[in-house]
C-alpha cells in the first residue's frame, strides 16, 4: 500500500463577520487511505460540510481557510493555483452533493452535462464520451441509460438523480470522492439503496470515499472508519466498530444514546438527547468545546482547549476522561437531561 | 392573536423609520426635496423678477459665472429677456404641483383597484388585471399627446391625463402587497370576529402596505414630473405664459450650439429633483424590505 490518498492536517476555516470572526472549523486532521471509506459524523453546524468544501477548494468567498497541509496523494493542494484546482476537481477528486434536485443544471440534458465534464478533463470524442456516460449510468443502476442521456433533470426522480450524480462523480475515475449528506434529501427506502450503491462502487473501484453525514445510523456497514466532529473540531476517531461499539467521547456517547436500537429500545421508552445547543463558534477557545453540554464535566475541562489524545493507531479522542467508558456513570446523563427540561 | 392587530402595523413601521434615519441617502434626498419645496413656496421672496416679464433690451444675458454675466440676472436671461433664475424658481411650482396632483389621482385609482383585486381575488381580480394589461398596452406619451392636442391645452387637463395614465404600478404593487397581507392571520381573525369589510381594508390592510406604497409613490411622482417635462418639451404640455422646466428646455433647444447652459440649467433642476425623489424612494425600499428583496 503506497501512502494515503488524502491527508489533512490542522485545517481551519475563519469567516469574518461584522468585526468578529467565526471559526466554524478549528483543527481538523483527516486521513483517507486507498480503498477506505471514512465517515465524518456530527450535528449540523459542526463544520463537517465546510471541511469537505475546503478540501474541494469550494469555500464561499468570505471564508479564509488555512492548514498545515492538505495532501492529495502526496501533493499539497492547499496552495494550488485556481488552474491546478480546476484540473483536480472532477478529475481526481469528485463530490456528490446533498440535494440531487438542485445539484444538476435544470437547463441541460443529463448526457450533455456528463459529456461536458468528461471532455473538460479528457481529450475524447463526443460519441466516446456519451458511450462512457451510458456505461456509468448503467453501472450505478439507472435503467435504460441511453434514453436518460436526452432527458432533463426534472424528468427524473430524486433517487435517479442521485444515481446520476454518482455516475458523474465516477466519470473520470477519481481517486477520492466526497459525498456530502448524499441520502439526506431522499426517501428512507431510497436512502438504503444509494448507500449500498456507494459501498459497492467503492469496493469495486478502490477509491477513497469520504461520507459526510449527521446520521450515525447511516455509517454502520458502510464506513471503515469514523471521524466524529463537534464544534469545528474532531473529537473522536476510530474504526466503525470501535466508535459505535465503545465510544470514548461523551459527545459520541450522547449521539448514540439518541438513536433507537431495533430489538433493544422498547416502545414508550424515552430516547436520550444531548441537552443544550451547539455553541456559536467565535473567538479563541478557553475550555473544552463540549464543556457546557457534558454530564461528566470536571474542573480541569474549563482550564483550556483540550488536545486530541492518541489511544492507539488511528484511535483518538479529544477528552480528559480516562478512555474507559465502562467506568462512567450513565445515570449522570439522565440527571443532566432532567435539569435541562426543568430549566 | 388579539394584540397582534395593534402591534403589527406599528412596530415594523417605526423600525423602518428608525433605519431610514440612519441612511445617508434619506437625508441627502430629503434635504434636496425640502430646499426645492421651500423654493417653490417662497419663490416671490427669492427673486424680484416676474418669470413672464419680457425685456427685449436684456436678451440672452449669460449666467453670472461667465465673462459677460451680471449679478442682476444670476442665471442670465432668455431669448425674450426674461430672468432665468425666476423662471427656474417658478418652474419648480409647476413640476411639484403636477407631480402631487397627478399622484392624488393615480394613487387613488391604483390603490383602490389594487386593494380590490388583491382582497377579493376571483373575477374582480381578473377584470382589474385585464384593465392593467390594457393600460400598459397603451403608449403613455402618445396617448397623453393625442388627448392634450385634440381637447386643447390646460393645466387641469394635463393633470387629469397624466393622473389617469400612471395608476398601473400602484395597482400592480398594491395588489400583490394586499394579497400577502390579506392571507396573514390577523386579517383572518378580523374577518372571523365580524369586522366590516371597509374597516378591514382601511384599518388593517392599508396601514400594512405603506412601505411599498411610499416606494411606488416616489416612482410615480418622478414619472409624472418627467412626463410633464417631456410633454412640455414637445410643445403640448404647459403653455406660456406659464413656466415649466420642460418648456424652458424646448425654448432653448435652438440655442444648443451657442448657449448650451440655457438647456443645462433647467435640465439640472429637473435631474436634481428626480434624483432626490429616487434617493428617498430607494431608501424606503431598502428599509422596508431588510432582506433586500423588492
Amino acid at each position, binding site marked *: 500500500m503506497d501512502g494515503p490518498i488524502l491527508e489533512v492536517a490542522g485545517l481551519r476555516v475563519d469567516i469574518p463577520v461584522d468585526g468578529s470572526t467565526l471559526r466554524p472549523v478549528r483543527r481538523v486532521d483527516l486521513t483517507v487511505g486507498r480503498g477506505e471509506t471514512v465517515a465524518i459524523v456530527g450535528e449540523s453546524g459542526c463544520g463537517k460540510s465546510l471541511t469537505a468544501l475546503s478540501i474541494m477548494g469550494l469555500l464561499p468567498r468570505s471564508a479564509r481557510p488555512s492548514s498545515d497541509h492538505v495532501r492529495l496523494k502526496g501533493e499539497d493542494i492547499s496552495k494550488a493555483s485556481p488552474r491546478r484546482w480546476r484540473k483536480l476537481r472532477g478529475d481526481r477528486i469528485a463530490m456528490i452533493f446533498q440535494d440531487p434536485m438542485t445539484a444538476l443544471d435544470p437547463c441541460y440534458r443529463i448526457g450533455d452535462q456528463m459529456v461536458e465534464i468528461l471532455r473538460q478533463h479528457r481529450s475524447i470524442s463526443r460519441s466516446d464520451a456519451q458511450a462512457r456516460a451510458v456505461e456509468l449510468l448503467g453501472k450505478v443502476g439507472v435503467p435504460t441509460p441511453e434514453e436518460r442521456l436526452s432527458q432533463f433533470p426534472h424528468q427524473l426522480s430524486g433517487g435517479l438523480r442521485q444515481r446520476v450524480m454518482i455516475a458523474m462523480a465516477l466519470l473520470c475515475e477519481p481517486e477520492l470522492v466526497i459525498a456530502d449528506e448524499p441520502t439526506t434529501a431522499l426517501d428512507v427506502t431510497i436512502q438504503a439503496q444509494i448507500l449500498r450503491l456507494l459501498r459497492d462502487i467503492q469496493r469495486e473501484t478502490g477509491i477513497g470515499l469520504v461520507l459526510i453525514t449527521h446520521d450515525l445510523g447511516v455509517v454502520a456497514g458502510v464506513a471503515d472508519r469514523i471521524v466524529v466532529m463537534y464544534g469545528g473540531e474532531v473529537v473522536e476517531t476510530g474504526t466503525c466498530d470501535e466508535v459505535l461499539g465503545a465510544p470514548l467521547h461523551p459527545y459520541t456517547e450522547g449521539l448514540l444514546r439518541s438513536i433507537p436500537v431495533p430489538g433493544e429500545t422498547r416502545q414508550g421508552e424515552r430516547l436520550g438527547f444531548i441537552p443544550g445547543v451547539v455553541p456559536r463558534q467565535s473567538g479563541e477557545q478557553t475550555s473544552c468545546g463540549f464543556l457546557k453540554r457534558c454530564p461528566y464535566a470536571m474542573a480541569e475541562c474549563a482550564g483550556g482547549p483540550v488536545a486530541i489524545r492518541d489511544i492507539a493507531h488511528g484511535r483518538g479522542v479529544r477528552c480528559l476522561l480516562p478512555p474507559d467508558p465502562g467506568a462512567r456513570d450513565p445515570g449522570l446523563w439522565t440527571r443532566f437531561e432532567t435539569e435541562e427540561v426543568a430549566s | 392573536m388579539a394584540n397582534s392587530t395593534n402591534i403589527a402595523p406599528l412596530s415594523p413601521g417605526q423600525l423602518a423609520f428608525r433605519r431610514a434615519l440612519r441612511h445617508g441617502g434619506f437625508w441627502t434626498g430629503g434635504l434636496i426635496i425640502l430646499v426645492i419645496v421651500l423654493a417653490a413656496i417662497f419663490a416671490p421672496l427669492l427673486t424680484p423678477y416676474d418669470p413672464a416679464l419680457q425685456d427685449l433690451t436684456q436678451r440672452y444675458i449669460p449666467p453670472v459665472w461667465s465673462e459677460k454675466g451680471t449679478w442682476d440676472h444670476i442665471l442670465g436671461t432668455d431669448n425674450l429677456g426674461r430672468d432665468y433664475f425666476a423662471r427656474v424658481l417658478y418652474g419648480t411650482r409647476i413640476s411639484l404641483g403636477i407631480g402631487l396632483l397627478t399622484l392624488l389621482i393615480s394613487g387613488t385609482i391604483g390603490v383602490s383597484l389594487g386593494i380590490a383585486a388583491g382582497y377579493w381575488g376571483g373575477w374582480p381580480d381578473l377584470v382589474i388585471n385585464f384593465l392593467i394589461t390594457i393600460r400598459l398596452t397603451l*403608449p403613455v406619451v402618445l396617448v397623453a399627446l393625442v388627448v392634450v392636442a385634440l381637447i386643447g391645452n390646460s393645466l387641469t387637463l394635463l393633470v387629469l391625463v397624466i393622473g389617469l395614465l400612471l395608476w398601473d404600478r400602484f395597482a400592480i404593487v398594491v395588489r400583490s402587497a394586499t394579497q400577502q397581507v390579506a392571507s396573514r392571520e390577523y386579517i383572518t381573525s378580523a374577518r372571523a370576529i365580524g369586522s366590516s369589510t371597509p374597516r378591514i381594508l382601511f384599518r388593517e390592510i392599508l396601514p400594512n402596505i405603506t412601505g411599498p406604497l411610499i416606494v411606488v409613490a416616489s416612482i410615480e411622482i418622478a414619472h409624472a414630473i418627467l412626463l410633464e417635462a417631456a410633454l412640455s418639451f414637445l410643445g403640448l404640455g404647459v403653455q406660456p405664459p406659464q413656466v415649466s422646466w420642460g418648456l424652458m428646455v424646448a425654448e432653448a433647444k435652438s440655442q444648443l450650439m451657442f448657449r448650451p447652459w440655457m438647456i443645462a440649467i433647467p*435640465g439640472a433642476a429637473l435631474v436634481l429633483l428626480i434624483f432626490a425623489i429616487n434617493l428617498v424612494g430607494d431608501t424606503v425600499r431598502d428599509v422596508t424590505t431588510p432582506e433586500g428583496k423588492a
Partner: protein
Amino acid sequence: MAAFITKRLALTVLVIIVTSIVAFMLVHLSGDPAAAMAGEGATDADIAAVRETYGFNRPLYAQYLDWVAKLLQGDFGRSYYLRMDVGDVLAEHMPITATLGALALGFALLLSVPLGVFAALWPNTMIDRFSLWLAVAGQALPSFLFALGLMYLFGVYLRWLPISGTGSWQNYIMPAIALGYYATPAIMRLTRSGMMDVLQSDHVRTARAYGLSPWRVIIKHSLRHAIIPVVSLAAVQLGFMLGGSIVIETIFSLKGIGYLAWESIQRADIEIIQAILLVIATAYALLTLVADLLNAALDPRIRVS
C-alpha cells in the same frame, strides 16, 4: 404547453380588440375631429360639410365597425392632410422606427448585460458601484435631456455625428443610444440580481466542483439561467421604446413612426393618429406575447413536461 399558448393567444387578441376600441374612442371623443380638420376660421357650414364627407355624423359604433372592417382588409384609411393611404404612410415610416428600436435594444443589452454580470461577479467593487450609479443616474435623466446632451457632445462639440436627419446610418447612432439608455437600468438590475441568485445555486457549485472552466460556469451554467427573465424584460422594453420613440425621433428629426405621430398630432390628422396608436399598442401586445412564449421556450422545465 399547448393550452398555455392557446390561452395566451386568446388574451392577446382580446387585448388588441379592446385597445383598438380605446384608441378609436380617444381620437373621436377628444374634441370634434371635423372642426379640427376644417381648420381655424372655418364656418359651421364648412365643418358640417367635413362631417358629412368623412362620415363623422354617423353613430360612433358604426364608425368603429367600419374602421375595423377596413382594417381587416388591410385598409388603414386615408390621411386627409397628406392625401395618401395611411397604410402607405406607415409602411414608409415603419422600417425606420423598427431599425431604431432594434438598435436601441441592442445597445441596451450590450451595455447592461455585461455590466450586470460583472456587478454580480464582483459585488461591492468599483464596477458594481459604477453600474449602480449608472442605473440611478439613468432613472433621473429624462430621455430628451440625455438626447440633447448627446447632441451637444457628439454633434456640436466633437462634430462626429450629424445632429438630425434620416439619411444615413450615422443618423441612427445617437437616437439609438438615447432610446436604449432608458432601458439599461432595468435590464442591468435584473441581470445583476438574477446572476447573484444563480451564482449561489447548487448546480453552479456542482459545475465548479467538477472543474469546469470559469467562463463555462459563468456563461453556460449561470447566465443561461439569469438571462431567461431578461429576455422577456427586453421584449417588453422594446415595446416601451416604440412608445417612447416619439420624443427621441422628434428631437433628432428621425422620420419614423414617432416623428409621424408628432406631426400628425399637430395637424389633427386623426386617421394616422388612430392607426399609429393601434400599431404601437399591437406591437406591445405582441411583444409581451413573444416574451411569455420565449420565457417558456427557454426554460426546459416548462417546455418539456
